[in-house]
C-alpha cells in the first residue's frame, strides 16, 4: 500500500493549541508520526530575568491559562526556599485548597474535551456545566476564574470566611454527586469504553522510558505523584490515595482523572476541617538573598518543575520552567503510531495539553436591588479604565481594544 504524508497543524481545527504533527499514513493507519513544538514560545523565562520577583509571580501565573496556580505556587516555593521563609500553616492550607479546586476544574474541563473529541458532546456539555460550580467557587474565593493571584511571597493574599467555607463544602457535595455519575458512566457505558479502550497505548515500560508524568504516566501503572513523593504545601498533613491504572491507554487516562476528582474532594474536606487559625502571610526579607532552589509541584497534567537562581538583587538571575506537557509530548508520537488517523485527536487530547480559556463576559448582580447587567468586552474595558481613573491612575488612550 502506498504511503501518504499529511501535516496536521501548526493551526488545525482538531488541535486546541498550536503544534505540528507530520503523519505518515498507510491507508487509515499511522505508520510514523513526528511532532514539532515551540509555536507558543513567548520568552517568559528571559522576561523573568528583567523583572522583580513580585512582577514575576504574575508573569509566571500566565504560563498556563488552566493551571495558573500550579506555576505560581511552584515558582514561589523556590523563591521562599531561597529567602528562608516559612509560610504560616493557614496560608499553606489555603494554597493547597486552591490547588485542589484548580485540579477539579482542570479535570472536568478535560473530561468535556475528551467527550467532544469522540463525538460524545452530551458529556462535554454536562461536565462543562458542572465545572461552572468550581469556577464560581474559585471566583468567589480569589476574585478571578482563572488567574487567581492568591499567592504572594510569604503566603496568600486573601483569607477565607466561614460563609465561604460553607459554600465550598456545598459545592464539593454537588460535584461529588456528579463525579459519581461520571465514574459510573466511565465504568459501565459500553460505547464510551469501546471507543477508548486500546486507543493510544503507552505501556508501563514506555511510560517510564519516555519519562511521562501525571495521569498519562499513572494510567500506565507508574506510581508517581509529587504530592506524596516530594510533599509541598500541606500535602504531608492530608490523607489521599495516588490513583493508578493498568489499562495503559486513553481509557485508563480517563479512569485516573475521574477517580482523582474524588481524591481532590476528600482533600478539600480535610483542608477545611483542619484549617488552623492564624496569619496568612509571613514577614519576608526586603531583598531575596543569593541562592538557588528546585521546586516541584503536581499540576493537574503532572509534575511541574521550576528552578530559580537568585543573585542578591531585586531580579532573579535565572528562572527555569518545565511544564508537564513537555514531558508527555515526547511519548505522543509513540502513542499515535500504529493507531488509526481518526484516533489522533483523542490520543493527543488524552495527555491533556494546555490551552487558555480566559475571555468571557461577566454578569454583574447588584446585591441591593437584585438588578442584573451584562458587560461586554468593550464595557468591561471602559469600566476598568474608570476604576483606575477614580484611584488616580489614567490609562485612557494607552491601548485600545
Amino acid at each position, binding site marked *: 500500500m502506498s504511503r501518504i504524508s499529511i501535516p496536521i497543524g501548526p493551526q488545525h481545527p482538531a488541535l486546541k493549541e498550536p503544534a505540528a504533527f507530520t503523519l505518515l499514513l498507510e491507508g487509515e493507519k499511522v505508520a510514523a508520526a513526528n511532532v514539532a*513544538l515551540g509555536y507558543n514560545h513567548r520568552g517568559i523565562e528571559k522576561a523573568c530575568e528583567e523583572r522583580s520577583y513580585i512582577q514575576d509571580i504574575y508573569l509566571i501565573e500566565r504560563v498556563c491559562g488552566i493551571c495558573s496556580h500550579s506555576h505560581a505556587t511552584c515558582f514561589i516555593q523556590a523563591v521562599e526556599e531561597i529567602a528562608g521563609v516559612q509560610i504560616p500553616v493557614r496560608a499553606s492550607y489555603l494554597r493547597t485548597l486552591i490547588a485542589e479546586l484548580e485540579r477539579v476544574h482542570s479535570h472536568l474541563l478535560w473530561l468535556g474535551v475528551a467527550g467532544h473529541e469522540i463525538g460524545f458532546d452530551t458529556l462535554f456539555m454536562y461536565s462543562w456545566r458542572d465545572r461552572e460550580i468550581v469556577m464560581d467557587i474559585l471566583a468567589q474565593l480569589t476574585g478571578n476564574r482563572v488567574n487567581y493571584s492568591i499567592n504572594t511571597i510569604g503566603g496568600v493574599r486573601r483569607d477565607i470566611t466561614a460563609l465561604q467555607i460553607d459554600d465550598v463544602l456545598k459545592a464539593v457535595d454537588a460535584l461529588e454527586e456528579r463525579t459519581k455519575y461520571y465514574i459510573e458512566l466511565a465504568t459501565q457505558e459500553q460505547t464510551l469504553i469501546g471507543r477508548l479502550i486500546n486507543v493510544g497505548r503507552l505501556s508501563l515500560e514506555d511510560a517510564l*522510558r*519516555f*519519562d511521562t508524568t501525571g495521569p498519562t504516566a499513572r494510567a500506565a501503572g507508574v506510581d*508517581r505523584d509529587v504530592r506524596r*513523593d516530594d*510533599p509541598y504545601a500541606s500535602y504531608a498533613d492530608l490523607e489521599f490515595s495516588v490513583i493508578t491504572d493498568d489499562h495503559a491507554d486513553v481509557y485508563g487516562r480517563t479512569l485516573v482523572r475521574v477517580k482523582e476528582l474524588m481524591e481532590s474532594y476528600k482533600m478539600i474536606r480535610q483542608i477545611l476541617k483542619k484549617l488552623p487559625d492564624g496569619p496568612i502571610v509571613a514577614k519576608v526579607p526586603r531583598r531575596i538573598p543569593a541562592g538557588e532552589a528546585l521546586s516541584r509541584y503536581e499540576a493537574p497534567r503532572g509534575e511541574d518543575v521550576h528552578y530559580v537562581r537568585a543573585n542578591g538583587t531585586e531580579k532573579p538571575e*535565572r528562572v527555569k520552567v518545565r511544564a508537564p506537557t513537555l*514531558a508527555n509530548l*515526547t511519548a505522543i508520537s509513540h502513542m499515535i503510531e500504529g493507531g488509526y488517523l481518526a484516533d489522533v485527536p483523542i490520543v493527543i487530547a488524552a495527555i491533556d495539553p494546555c490551552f487558555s480559556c480566559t475571555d468571557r463576559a461577566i454578569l454583574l448582580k447588584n446585591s441591593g436591588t437584585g438588578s442584573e447587567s451584562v458587560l461586554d468586552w468593550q464595557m468591561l474595558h471602559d469600566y476598568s479604565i474608570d476604576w483606575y481613573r477614580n484611584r488616580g491612575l489614567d490609562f485612557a488612550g494607552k491601548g485600545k481594544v
Partner: protein
Amino acid sequence: MEGDFPVESDITGRLAIKFPLLEGKLQITRERRIFADVPSDIFQDVIGFLKNEMGFDHICTITGLDVGEELQFIYHISDKHGIVMNLKLNVPKADPVAGTITPLFNGAVFYERELESMLGAKIKGLPDGRRYPLFDGWPEGQYPLRKDWKPEMLTEALAQKEQAKKQAEGGRS
C-alpha cells in the same frame, strides 16, 4: 547539617566513595535536595551510576545558565522517594560541548534541544531533529538565554534579512 538528613547523607556518602573526585562537591540544601558540582570528565559515569545503581531514574528537566565565561547545565534527576539530585556541569563558552544523556534518559531529547537553541550548547550524540523552541527563521548564532542577548538583536537581524530578501527580489525584476 549533614547529620539532620540521614537518607540524603547516605546517598552523598555512597557517591563520594564511588567517585573520590566528588569529595567536598556535594551539598545537601534541604530535605530531599542534593546539589553536586561534577567535573566534566566523570560526568557521564556519575549520572549513569546514579540512574543504574542508585534509583535516580526520572529526569525532571535540565536547566541551562550563562555564568560568564562558562555555560552551566544542571541535570535535575529524582528517585522514587522524592529526592532530587541536581548535577551541575560547567563547560567553557568558547567550546560549549556536552555529551548527550538521551541513551540513559530517553525523555531528555527536548531538554537538550532547548540547551542548544536557547544557550548555544553543542550536545554531542543528540539525534538530528528540528530545533526547539525557537522558530525556523530564527537568526543563526543568536542565543536568547545568554546574558549578552537583547531582544533588539533579533529585531535587527530579522529586518536585515527582510532587506536582503527585498534587494534580491529587486535585482531579479
